[in-house]
């Protein structure tokens, strides 16, 4: 049976290999979280590395007290993300990744391009939402967290998360409508989505 996070954290304070196991357990999740927030592989890699180095530096200060290790890690990533946004608002850059639409074109390039364009419009609309709403969508859809788990990461109650999810969908729908985007006809069965 796999060692739980609390036991691994306790061991990681004295055994570097245990920190390596925690890293293996969370690197993909933290990377995905940061990738969808930044829209850039390069930035996501940079912020992922910073998140884990900061966790390593502060591991001796971490105490569980109702905040699981995963939630603590997401909070570090969230704080780094906030700094990244502040920096980028002062030094605007265009991410090549964000405008690249030609991934996974498959057998039918035109349709695939259409799907990719639609996907980019949705991702852009998500990135235009306030940070807490972006975070909620990523934790719910990518990490498949329950509202209770999301609440721990975001420091909110389960009920508040449920209500925020509803408001987020309403806001995102409005945002997509404002961009002239219609969901009609764009939904595809999962196995054909790139």
């Amino acid at each position: 049976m796999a060692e739980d996070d609390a036991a691994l954290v306790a061991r990681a304070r004295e055994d570097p290999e245990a920190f390596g196991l925690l890293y293996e357990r969370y690197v993909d999740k933290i990377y995905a979280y940061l990738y969808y927030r930044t829209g850039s592989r390069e930035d996501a890699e940079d912020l992922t590395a910073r998140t884990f180095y900061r966790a390593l530096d502060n591991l001796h200060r971490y105490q569980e007290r109702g905040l699981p290790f995963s939630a603590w890690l997401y909070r570090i990533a969230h704080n780094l993300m906030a700094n990244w946004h502040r920096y980028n608002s002062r030094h605007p850059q265009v991410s090549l990744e964000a405008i690249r639409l030609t991934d996974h074109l498959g057998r039918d390039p035109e349709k695939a391009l259409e799907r990719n364009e639609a996907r980019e419009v949705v991702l852009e609309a998500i990135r235009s939402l306030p940070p807490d709403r972006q975070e909620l969508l990523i934790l719910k859809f990518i990490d498949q967290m329950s509202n209770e788990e999301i609440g721990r990461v975001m420091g909110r109650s389960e009920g508040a998360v449920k209500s925020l999810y509803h408001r987020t969908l309403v806001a995102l729908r409005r945002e997509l409508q404002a961009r002239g985007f219609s969901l009609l006809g764009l939904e595809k069965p999962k196995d054909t989505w790139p």
Partner: protein
Amino acid sequence: MKDPRILLAEEALLQDILEAQAGTLAEGGDDALYLRLFPHLQARLAPLLSLARYLQQVLVPVHPSAQFREHLRAGLLTAAHQRIPAAAAGSGAAWKPQWEWIVGAAAVGSAVSIAGVAAFLIRRAQQRATSQDVA
């Protein structure tokens, strides 16, 4: 115009349905049931259910490259080997004597202050007694 209490109840019901749908989607189930169960909410519910279904397809897990993963792991382990023994020593043996010294010094300081005040009071009482005898 609808009664505000009905609107509030509808709002809560919408939240519950969206939450249930998220669970169904996560398990790969069919969410068509929700529209059939709540036809009176169809106008508000249908676009949100559809959007959530679409998000499920767009927000898919992504992974860092194997090269990045390995490089970062190696860097972290090297750093951990350097930092963890120092942190463990810092949080254990090196700090305890310092706290003991601080608590000890504070106790000695308090005892000296109390003794000083007591000596002052005794001395003043003796001076008063002497001056009364002279008088």
